[in-house]
């Protein structure tokens, strides 16, 4: 069994060290600007749009993105790009043009706080608590993934990796708050791009260019030894839409409706439009116009990312198919697709460039983790501590709390990392439960922002119903070949109503059910209950009660509506090119 091990040369360590020095240096340089809680949690709302924009995608560019998208690129081919060109881009345009006016304009300091202003206390509490728990766990999982990867490929001790990554992230957030996290995310963004560009270029060069890659992937599709274990038509790995008429015709196992509705509409809009982790970056912008431009600016590099994160996976599966043992096997003897990026690094990067690549990998893990930590400390301090535990204290008190909770949050994350290491199932289960809680959120925001009649009770019970619908769906369905349990089918003694070809399809449909459940119940309960907010209280929070924004002094080429249209058109063109 070929086990991957990469040896770093002194020059690689030197590059890594330079990166660490600058990451910490940024925190150190910013420490004297952290005078109020608003500086620490909101960057004093003083960051230019392009910086917020890059931080907006960088915070999302964590472990899952870099490692997971390359793995999906190998397993499913270019259909993975739906996560970008159908999923992320339209949602990012929507949040920038339609939702940011309410987030930024309402002066809410967090997404849960918006829910409180728009609906009521219990809706906010539900969202704040589930979000806070979820973010510390995510940052723990991120840390665990990094430490395990470094242990596997570089032979670094696991504990040391955890300690170093936790301490570095802690130091730069503790010192410089959100500004420090955002600045570092910009640094990490470029580091990741510059680490991956040569890798992709060399990979493509070595398989003989795009046309040769397409030819090789056609033989992958035609071989029963491909990752899906079934024979597909030519182009199943290199055409994003052509094979989506039926779930059996493509390696992802989904048909176009489930993908467009589940991924494109519910999951993507739910994530990009309501997750405070990314929205926080836009809220730090220095003006309404900059806040609205943040996701639009972010969308531009985002739509090019498939070339950086999916293409390596496609190259790797082509090479794997040709060479037979390019990708290593995991402990169960199955091909370990999560090793795609490390294998590519080991294959194509000589010492020196290897250091840049490993640094890029670390940068991606840290940006994801820091994003979680800053979102967590803000929600904890403003939405839980200040609202329910110790209200009415001077600002200094909350700034101090911010420092303390940053330390505590990272300590809990470290604990989670070790739990994830020992009990993988617990983490799977937690992520599953978080999925149930998250899936319906977008319905709540949509109704909240565009229907003034939606009430606090409606929102709260709608959310519960949506979460319940997701759980119910999960309990009654199962992906093919999976055992009853964490994968589903646990509700009625192993009796399953529907079997999906792959778990991806199950996820998409769970989201559709959750969203619909929440949407219907919110409307029904809202109509049956009395409004708890007057039109006056909802000014600035609901579309029909908010004066249209006039972007004064913003040149025409920076108008959000125009930028959004251009971004959407570009996404359509990309879909057509790779149809």
């Amino acid at each position: 069994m070929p086990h991957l091990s990469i040896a770093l040369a002194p020059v690689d360590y030197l590059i890594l060290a330079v990166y660490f020095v600058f990451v910490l240096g940024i925190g150190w340089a910013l420490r004297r600007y952290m005078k109020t809680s608003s500086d620490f949690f909101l960057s004093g709302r003083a960051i230019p749009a392009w910086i917020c924009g890059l931080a907006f995608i960088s915070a999302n560019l964590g472990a899952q993105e870099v490692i997971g998208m390359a793995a999906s690129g190998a397993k499913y081919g270019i259909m993975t790009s739906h996560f970008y060109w159908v999923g992320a881009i339209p949602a990012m345009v929507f949040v920038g043009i339609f939702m940011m006016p309410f987030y930024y304009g309402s002066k809410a300091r967090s997404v849960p706080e918006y829910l409180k202003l728009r609906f009521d206390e219990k809706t906010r509490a539900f969202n704040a608590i589930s979000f806070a728990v979820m973010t510390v766990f995510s940052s723990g999982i991120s840390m665990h993934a990094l430490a395990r990867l470094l242990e596997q490929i570089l032979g670094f001790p696991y504990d040391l990796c955890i300690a170093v990554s936790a301490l570095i992230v802690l130091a730069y957030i503790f010192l410089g708050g959100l500004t420090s996290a955002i600045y570092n995310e910009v640094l990490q963004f470029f580091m990741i791009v510059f680490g991956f560009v040569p890798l992709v270029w060399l990979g493509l060069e070595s398989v003989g260019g795009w046309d040769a890659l397409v030819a090789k992937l056609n033989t992958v599709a035609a071989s029963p030894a491909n990752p899906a274990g079934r024979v597909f038509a030519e182009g199943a790995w290199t055409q994003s839409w052509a094979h989506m008429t039926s779930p059996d015709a493509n390696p992802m196992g989904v048909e176009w409706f489930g993908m467009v509705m589940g991924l494109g509409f519910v999951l993507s809009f739910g994530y990009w439009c309501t997750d405070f982790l990314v929205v926080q970056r836009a809220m730090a912008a220095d003006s309404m116009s900059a806040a609205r431009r943040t996701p639009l600016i972010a969308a531009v590099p985002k739509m090019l990312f498939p070339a950086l994160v999916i293409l390596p996976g496609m190259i790797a599966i082509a090479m794997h198919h040709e060479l037979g043992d390019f990708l290593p096997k995991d402990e169960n003897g199955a091909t370990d697709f999560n090793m795609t990026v490390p294998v590519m690094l080991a294959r194509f990067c000589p010492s020196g460039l290897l250091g840049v690549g490993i640094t890029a990998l670390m940068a991606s893990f840290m940006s994801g983790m820091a994003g979680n930590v800053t979102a967590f400390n803000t929600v904890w301090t403003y939405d839980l501590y200040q609202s329910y535990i110790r209200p009415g204290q001077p600002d200094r008190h909350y700034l101090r709390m911010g420092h303390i909770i940053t330390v505590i949050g990272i300590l809990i994350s470290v604990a989670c990392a070790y739990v994830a290491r020992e009990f993988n199932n617990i983490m799977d289960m937690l992520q599953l439960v978080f999925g149930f809680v998250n899936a319906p959120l977008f319905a709540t925001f949509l109704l909240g922002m565009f229907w003034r009649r939606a009430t606090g009770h409606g929102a709260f019970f709608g959310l519960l119903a949506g979460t319940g619908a997701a759980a119910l769906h999960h309990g009654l369905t199962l992906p093919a070949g999976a055992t009853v349990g964490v994968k589903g089918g646990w509700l009625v003694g192993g009796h399953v109503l529907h079997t999906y070809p792959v778990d991806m399809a199950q996820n998409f449909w769970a989201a559709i059910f959750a969203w619909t459940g929440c949407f219907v119940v919110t409307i029904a309960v809202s109509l049956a209950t009395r409004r708890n907010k007057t039109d006056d209280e909802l000014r600035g929070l609901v579309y029909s009660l908010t004066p249209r924004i006039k972007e004064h002094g913003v040149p025409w080429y920076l108008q959000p509506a125009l930028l959004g249209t251009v971004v959407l058109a570009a996404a359509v063109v990309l879909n057509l090119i790779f149809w």
Partner: protein
Amino acid sequence: MQLDVRLPMGMMFVIIGVILSLYGLITWSDAEMYQRSLGYNVNLWWGLFLAAFGAAMLLLARRAAIRAKRDAATPQTP
């Protein structure tokens, strides 16, 4: 703005770029090592690119600082 992010970013990429391209020069004749990168001396070329990117960032930061100083020096007319 308190600190222009292009300043540390520019410095970092200049330093990393210089390290990388120097290493590329030193290992110029190591054909075996560069077999991995298909015979290209990627360290030298990518190092030069990173250094150039860093320098461009520093230049932009400097220009912004000069402009901010000039704006502060000229009194605002109502």
